[in-house]
C-alpha cells in the first residue's frame, strides 16, 4: 500500500504523495445512564476516512459541525490516537507510534488552530512561543534563536521588533499570524489548518488567507485545510473532500465539487451557502433545503448515513452502504459515496 520508507527530513518532490490516510477511525467511548443500569456506547466521530495528500497540494475538508473534520485533523497530527486505520507519512505508519518515536514526525506535521485567543499561552512572549519548537527540535544554534524568530515574524507579516510582546498586545488576525509563525518555525512539510480564519473579521480573514497562500506557493507546504465556509475552501483548495457524520461522502478536484457535485449532500451544502452572487449575478435556478439536523454520531443511520435527510433515499440506502467511488461519467479523481450519484449544475449563482 505504501511507498518505501524514506528518511523523513528529506523533502518530498513536488507531486509526490506525502500523506496517505487509510480507513482512519476515531471512536470515543461514552457512558449513558438508563434507570439503574449504564450502557457503554461509542461516538463514531470519524469512521473510515481515506485520502492522499501530495507534496504542495491543498486538500480541503468541509462539512458541518460534528462531521469529524477537526477530529481527522487532530489524528493526522497525532494530537489524538486513532482507534484504527493508517496514517502513512512518507511511508511510515504513524497512527499508533509512541510519543518518543513520534517526535521527528511532529516536526513535519504542524497544526494551526481556529481560535487565536485561546491557542497561544498568554504568559509567554511571542519570541518564546515561536522559539520553543526550535529548541525542542534542535533546529538552531544557541544565540541564533532571536534572528530566526524575527525572520519568521517578518515572513508572516508581523513587525520583527515586536518579538518581546505578549499575545494580548496583538489583534485576532495578528495572533493567528503568530500561530502560523509557530507552525512554520520547524519547517514542516504539511500544515493542518483547522478553521484558521473563521474567528476573524472579513477584512482580516482575507489577509490571513493570502498569507497562507503565499506560504504554500513559496515554501511548497502541503495543506489539509479544514473549514465550514465553502467560499474559503473553494478559494484555497485544489482538492476538496466533503464529510458527513464521520465519513467522506464526496471527493474530487475543486472544479468538479463546485461545478458538478454528485452527492446529494454536497449539492444541498452548496445550495444552502449564502451567496453574494444572488444579487451580483444570476441567482441559482434550483434551491435545495435539507430538513432537520444532522443525526447523532452515537447511533448513526444504517447504510448511507445521509439517507435520513436525503430526498433521493430508497430502500437500498438503508441496507447497503454506498462506496466512495468514481461513477462512469465522473471526471478523473472525482468520487462520490451515493447509490444515486448524479451531477447537478446550477446550484450556485452565476456571475457574468
Amino acid at each position: 500500500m505504501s511507498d518505501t520508507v524514506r528518511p523523513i527530513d528529506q523533502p518530498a518532490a513536488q507531486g509526490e504523495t506525502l500523506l496517505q490516510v487509510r480507513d482512519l477511525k476515531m471512536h470515543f467511548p461514552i457512558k449513558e445512564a438508563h434507570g439503574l443500569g449504564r450502557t457503554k456506547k461509542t461516538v463514531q466521530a470519524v469512521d473510515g476516512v481515506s485520502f492522499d495528500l501530495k507534496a504542495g497540494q491543498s486538500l480541503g475538508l468541509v462539512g458541518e459541525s460534528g462531521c469529524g473534520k477537526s477530529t481527522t485533523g487532530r489524528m493526522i497530527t497525532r494530537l489524538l490516537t486513532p482507534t484504527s486505520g493508517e496514517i502513512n507519512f512518507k511511508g511510515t505508519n504513524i497512527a499508533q507510534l509512541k510519543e518518543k518515536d513520534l517526535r521527528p514526525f511532529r516536526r513535519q506535521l504542524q497544526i494551526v488552530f481556529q481560535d487565536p485567543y485561546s491557542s497561544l499561552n498568554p504568559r509567554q512572549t511571542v519570541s518564546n512561543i515561536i522559539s520553543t519548537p526550535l529548541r525542542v527540535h534542535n533546529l538552531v544554534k544557541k544565540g541564533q534563536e532571536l534572528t530566526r524568530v524575527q525572520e519568521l515574524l517578518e515572513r508572516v507579516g508581523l513587525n520583527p521588533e515586536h518579538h518581546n510582546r505578549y499575545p494580548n498586545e496583538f489583534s485576532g488576525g495578528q495572533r493567528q499570524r503568530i500561530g502560523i509563525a509557530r507552525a512554520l518555525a520547524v519547517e514542516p512539510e504539511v500544515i493542518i489548518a483547522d478553521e484558521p480564519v473563521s474567528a476573524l473579521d472579513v477584512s482580516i480573514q482575507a489577509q490571513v488567507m493570502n498569507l497562507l497562500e503565499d506560504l504554500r506557493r513559496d515554501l511548497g507546504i502541503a495543506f489539509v485545510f479544514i473549514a465550514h465556509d465553502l467560499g474559503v475552501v473553494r478559494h484555497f483548495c485544489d482538492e476538496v473532500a466533503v464529510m458527513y457524520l464521520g465519513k467522506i461522502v464526496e471527493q474530487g478536484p475543486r472544479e468538479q465539487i463546485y461545478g458538478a457535485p454528485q452527492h446529494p449532500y454536497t449539492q444541498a451544502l452548496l445550495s444552502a451557502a449564502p451567496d453574494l452572487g444572488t444579487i451580483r449575478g444570476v441567482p441559482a435556478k434550483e434551491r435545495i433545503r435539507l430538513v432537520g439536523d444532522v443525526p447523532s454520531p452515537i447511533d448513526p443511520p444504517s447504510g448511507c448515513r445521509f439517507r435520513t435527510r436525503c430526498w433521493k433515499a430508497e430502500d437500498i440506502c438503508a441496507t447497503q452502504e454506498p462506496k466512495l467511488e468514481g461513477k462512469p461519467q465522473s471526471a478523473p479523481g472525482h468520487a462520490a459515496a451515493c447509490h444515486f450519484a448524479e451531477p447537478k449544475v446550477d446550484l450556485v449563482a452565476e456571475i457574468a
Partner: protein
Amino acid sequence: MLYFVARRLVSALSVVLVTLIATFALFFIAPTDPAAAICGDRNCTQERYNEIKKNLNLDQPKVQQFAEYTAGIFAGRTFETSGVIQDCNAPCLGYSFKNDRPVTQMIKDRLPVTVSLVAGYAVLVLTIGVFVGSMAAKRRGTLGDRALMSSTLILSSVPYYIVALMISLYFTILYPILPRGGYTPLTDNAGKWFAGLLTPWLVLGIYNCTAYARYSRGSMVETLSEDYIRTARAKGLSDRKVTYKHALRSGMIPVITIFGLDVAGSLAGAIFTERIFDLPGLGNLVLQSLETYDLPVIMGTVLVASVVLVAMNFIVDVAYSLIDPRVRLS
C-alpha cells in the same frame, strides 16, 4: 434520576466506611495503649483498666475488635462496668467509661442543641447573605456596592471569636439589649428556645453572611452578564424578575456547594459559638472529650461528623440535580 441517586448513595456509604476504618485505626492501632487512655490517669485503678481491656476485647486481634465495634453500630452491644452490665443499643458508638454512659446517648442529648443553632444560622445566611450579595451584584460598581463589600471585608478580617465575645459581653451583659445565650428544648418552651438562641444566631449568622454576600455577589455578577439574562431583559421582564428569578437560580449553584459544606461543618461542632454562648451542643461535647481524652466520645463524634458531611454532600448533589436539569444526565 434513580441511577443518579443510587450511585451517589453507594459512594456516600463507602466514604463513611473509610472514615470508620480510619478513626478506628487512629485510636486503636496507634502505638498508645487504648485501654489506659480510655481509663484516664487519675482515678484509673488496675481493676478498672482490666475491665476496660476485657470489655473492648483488646486482647483479641484488631480485626475482631473492629468487627465488634462495627457490629455494635448496627446491632448494639453490651459493656460491663463495675460489675454492672450496661446495654448499648444500636447504633452503639462505644461507651464512655469516664462518664459511664453510652456515647450514642451523649451525642443524642447534644444534637438538638446544635441542630437548632445551625438551622437558624442556615436560614439567616441563605436569606440575608444571598440577598445582600445579589443586591450588590445588581448595583455593581456603585458606591453602595463598594461600601457594602468593603464593610464585609472589614468584618470578616476580625477573628470570629473576638466578634462573638465582644457582642456577648457588650450586648448581653453590659448593655443587655439582646437576650443571653442558653438552651431550652423547643418542645419545653418555644419562646425560651428562641430567646436563648437569638443572640448566637445573629452573631454566627451576621458574621458569616459577609462571606455569603461576597460569594453570592461574585456568582451573581457572572450570571448577570450571561446571554440569557440579556434575553430575559429583551422579553420585557422587570429588573427585579430578571435578578431574582432568572439570575438567582443559576447564581445559587456555586453558593449551594459552600453552604452544604458549611452547614455540615457547623453541625459537627460550632465550637466557638457553643462555648461562648454556653450552649450544650456537639461542639462543647467535642471540647470536653478532648480535654478529658475521652477516646470513645471523640471517635463517636468524628464518625457522626463524617456521616453528617457525607449526608450534606448527598443533599447538595440532589439539590443540584433539582436546580440544574443538565446534571441529571451524568
